[in-house]
């Protein structure tokens, strides 16, 4: 239903530099599917999501590639067409901080009514308000609260109100941008579950953008791991968690605690994500990868396809088993860090 | 003076290099700042050298060969800007005018900004009833319409150069006070202030050595803005006829040309002072705008 091909998005910074936020991304989304888009901050996942609806700001631009949505290429649509036909109606968004997603000077109900009446002709005010109340009920909020202002809601309630707004037009795709980061863990769980339920009820798909592996583990059907503006690995959830092939995925997986394990040593991936300013002809992850070989610095790895839609962009993808085992040992990562520091010192 | 040195040293250490490079960078990139600095430089030179360069004494009544007064003459070779209805040379008057405008403007601004900063810092630092009283007082001054208040005071106290400077300062400090207080309040919350307090540093030390250097960029910005506002105020006071006897400012020139009833015809008399006030204030605003960019969040730590 949604097919992204070789998408390239560039931002221009104040200094005039071009940041390749999305650097050649291929991705598909099936109907009724929840796709998790995972990565560190700055990897381009939010940009990728926003580029679907053209929300790139004044200095962002899609410079290459196509986004095929139900037979139309979204990159070719005019702003007007995007506004009328795609935004919110087909693809809507749940932002990170729900309270800030509402205009503080209008009631929440008013804002839901506003978007309904804007997209659907012939809906009277009363009908729209009724719809708003229904939505609140669906989300477990008291109907009367549609007449409250955003600041009168608590964090969790605001998030529910935001979800109500997001599903008000029955969109085909829901973009959830770190929807639970601002909430405490208990509420997080409840909200995530409710989103999942709703998604099933509405027959829509969802792209869940997050840096939190545990969130995607629970809710997503498939997971796409992003690094340096590219999708470095993509597969269904179980495969990603049990059978990751890309070193970055391996590292990410190990960085999150698993309650069922007896005692675990947490592993973190040392180093920082790349700046994405200059295009490079090497594997973006190579500088931080403990398994990097010479060929990793010589060119960009193509995707290696494994069965069932599982693909990974790594020269050593076939060695998955061994790499995984080594990856579970925190020393693999710290050794690399020590090595790096040593070599850096010697360079000075 | 040791305290002053310590303050400047602190300020320099905190902002020093970054500030200088930022200013230079701004100068290079911001066209308006360049124009502003250039214009201001010109006026500054005028203020300093004007009286020396003036071909005539601004008050002398000039007579021509046949000993009749040269009234309201258009610009000629002898009188580049023409003459007034009393036969005085306008070019000389114009040259002199810069000095008064700049002096009144900057001195009033200096007083006003200093007073405002002190009040703002004190209110912010001590909080409680001190803050309440100081802010109520500031509110009161805010409630007074500026120009009428100034005129009323000039009326009561008499019109001398010093009085006018003082009176302008007395109304202009209010803006700086509020802004600096607001800024100081947010600085006060920062961790290193708390640690200074817990070490037992004295109040004065904290205010002057820790908070002040951080508000200094904002103070400088407001000093620039206040200078602009003060120049405008002086111009209005003079235009209304309340300039001091020795205050030969551009505003006063406007007062004279207007009251002579000749603005319809004597364009040579009307344009120079009016345009100059506008350009001078504009240049200060341009510089202020550039300063504002410098004092923006990117410079704050």
């Amino acid at each position, binding site marked *: 239903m949604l097919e992204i091909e070789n998408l390239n998005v560039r931002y221009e910074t104040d200094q005039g530099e071009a940041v390749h936020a999305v650097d050649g991304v291929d991705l598909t989304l099936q109907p009724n599917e929840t796709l998790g888009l995972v990565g560190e901050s700055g990897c381009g996942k939010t940009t990728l999501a926003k580029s679907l609806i053209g929300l790139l700001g004044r200095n962002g631009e899609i410079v290459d590639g196509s986004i095929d949505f139900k037979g139309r290429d979204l990159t070719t649509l005019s702003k007007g067409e995007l506004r009328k036909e795609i935004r919110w*109606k087909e693809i809507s968004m749940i932002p990170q901080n729900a309270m800030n997603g509402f205009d503080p000077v209008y009631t929440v109900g008013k804002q839901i009514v506003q*978007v309904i009446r804007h997209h659907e002709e012939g809906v009277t005010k009363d009908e729209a308000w009724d719809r708003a109340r229904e939505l609140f009920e669906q989300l477990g909020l008291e109907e009367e609260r549609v007449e409250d202002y955003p600041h009168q809601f608590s964090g969790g309630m605001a998030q529910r109100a935001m979800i109500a707004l997001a599903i008000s037009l029955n969109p085909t795709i829901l973009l959830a941008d770190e929807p639970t980061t601002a909430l405490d863990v208990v509420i997080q769980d409840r909200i995530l579950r409710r989103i999942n339920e709703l998604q099933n009820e509405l027959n829509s798909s969802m792209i869940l953008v997050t840096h939190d592996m545990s969130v995607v583990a629970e809710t997503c059907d498939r997971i796409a791991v992003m690094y340096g503006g590219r999708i470095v690995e993509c597969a269904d959830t179980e495969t990603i968690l049990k059978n990751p092939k890309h070193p970055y995925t391996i590292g990410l997986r190990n960085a999150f605690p698993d309650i069922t394990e007896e005692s675990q040593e947490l592993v973190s991936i040392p180093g920082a994500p790349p700046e994405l300013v200059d295009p490079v002809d090497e594997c973006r992850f190579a500088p931080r990868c403990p398994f990097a070989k010479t060929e990793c610095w010589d060119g960009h790895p193509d995707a290696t396809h494994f069965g069932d839609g599982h693909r990974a962009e790594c020269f050593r993808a076939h060695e998955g088993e061994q790499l995984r085992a080594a990856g579970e040992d925190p020393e693999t990562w710290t050794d690399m860090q020590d090595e790096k520091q040593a070599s850096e010192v010697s360079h000075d | 003076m040791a305290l002053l040195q310590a303050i400047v040293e602190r300020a320099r250490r905190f902002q020093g290099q970054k500030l200088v490079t930022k200013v230079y960078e701004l100068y290079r990139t911001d066209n308006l700042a360049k124009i502003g600095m250039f214009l201001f430089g010109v006026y500054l030179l005028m203020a300093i050298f004007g009286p020396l360069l003036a071909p005539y004494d601004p008050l002398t009544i000039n007579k021509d060969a046949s000993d009749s007064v040269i009234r309201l003459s258009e610009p000629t070779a002898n009188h580049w800007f023409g003459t007034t209805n009393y036969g005085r040379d306008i070019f000389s008057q114009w040259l002199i005018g810069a000095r008064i405008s700049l002096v009144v403007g900057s001195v009033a601004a200096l007083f006003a900004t200093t007073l405002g900063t002190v009040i703002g810092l004190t209110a912010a630092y001590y909080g409680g009833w001190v803050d309440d009283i100081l802010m109520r007082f500031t509110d009161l001054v805010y*409630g007074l319409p500026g120009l009428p208040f100034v*005129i*009323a005071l000039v009326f009561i106290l008499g019109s001398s150069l010093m009085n006018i400077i003082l009176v302008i300062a007395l109304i202009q400090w209010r*803006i700086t006070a509020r802004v600096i207080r607001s800024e100081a309040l947010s600085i006060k919350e920062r961790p290193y202030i708390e640690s200074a307090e817990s070490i037992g540093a004295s109040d004065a030390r904290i205010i002057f050595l820790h908070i002040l250097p951080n508000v200094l960029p904002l103070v400088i910005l407001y000093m620039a803005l206040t200078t602009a506002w003060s120049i405008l105020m002086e111009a*209005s006071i003079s235009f209304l006829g309340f300039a001091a006897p020795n205050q030969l400012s551009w505003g006063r020139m406007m007062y004279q040309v207007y009251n002579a009833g000749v603005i319809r015809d004597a*364009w040579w008399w009307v344009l120079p002072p009016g345009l100059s006030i506008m350009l001078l*204030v504009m240049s200060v605003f341009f510089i202020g705008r550039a300063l504002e960019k410098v004092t923006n969040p990117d410079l704050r730590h």
Partner: protein
Amino acid sequence: MGLKEYVTRRVFHLIITYWAFVTTLFALFRLLPGDPTTLYLQSGMTPEERQRALERLGLDRPLYVQYFDYVTDLLTGDLGWSFRHKAEVYEVLATKFWNTIFLMGTALILAYIIGVLLGAILGWWRGTRREKTGLIGVLIARSSPEFWTGIVLLMVFVFWLNWFPSGRMRSIGMVVDGFWDKYLAWDFVYHMILPLTTAVLYYMTMPVLVMRSGMVNILTSDFIEIKKAEGLPEWTILYKHAARNSILPVVTIAAVTSGVAIGGSLVIETVFNWPGMGRAMVEAVSFNDYQLAMGAFFLMGSFVIMMNFVADLLYVYLDPRVTYGGEQ
């Protein structure tokens, strides 16, 4: 804090401010170096005349009595005696007060409306060349003293183009019939256009700049992005959402702006010979008519304090966060 509480607080604040203002006026008079009576009395009076005048004016009584008399006088509308006009100050200023209010009030309203709309657009256009040009225009208006703008307008539109009269409030020989007839006549409007334009050009600069900077701030908010994601048209987002949120600080500067407006009346009314309070005050000061001058100042201050109060109320109406508290 509920709505009622807020309003009561504001009314209380109004009374205190007013009292402080009146006291300040009283103190100003006492500030005088030298003989305070010189402002009240005309020169060339004999010592006995002076003594009698002093007694009549109550200047020989103890300070607190004078203060009490002063306040009660003000409250009953007794602003003193103008020796130049040989009439009660109140009478002299009554019509002039309205002349000023009609001119400056209209100017303020227009300035705010234009200022807000223009500021919103400039904020929306941030970084573009259009915005830069707009900003420079605003800066030029801000840098021109009101009298300069006025004189330039006079030179262009009156002396050169002859489109408008050069001053005064109505044509010589016009007869007016009653209060409203005076202010709603075309002749009045015709005379008002130039001073009004001068005033608006000067006053709107503050709302424009404040609105613009507020917009620039608001436009980076999350909810603006959501509104864009909702597919709402640009104008709706600009005005209904961004501008509506940025307008609050503009209301708070109403205090200073109305003060500037009243101050401007002194200059603008002088340039255009408009028979208002401002010009009256200037004349009074020039002729040492102390009571008239202070009376005018009192009226002006009262107007500004009133405007502040109205602005406070308007602020509450616009910001629901004040009326309806946080999460229950």
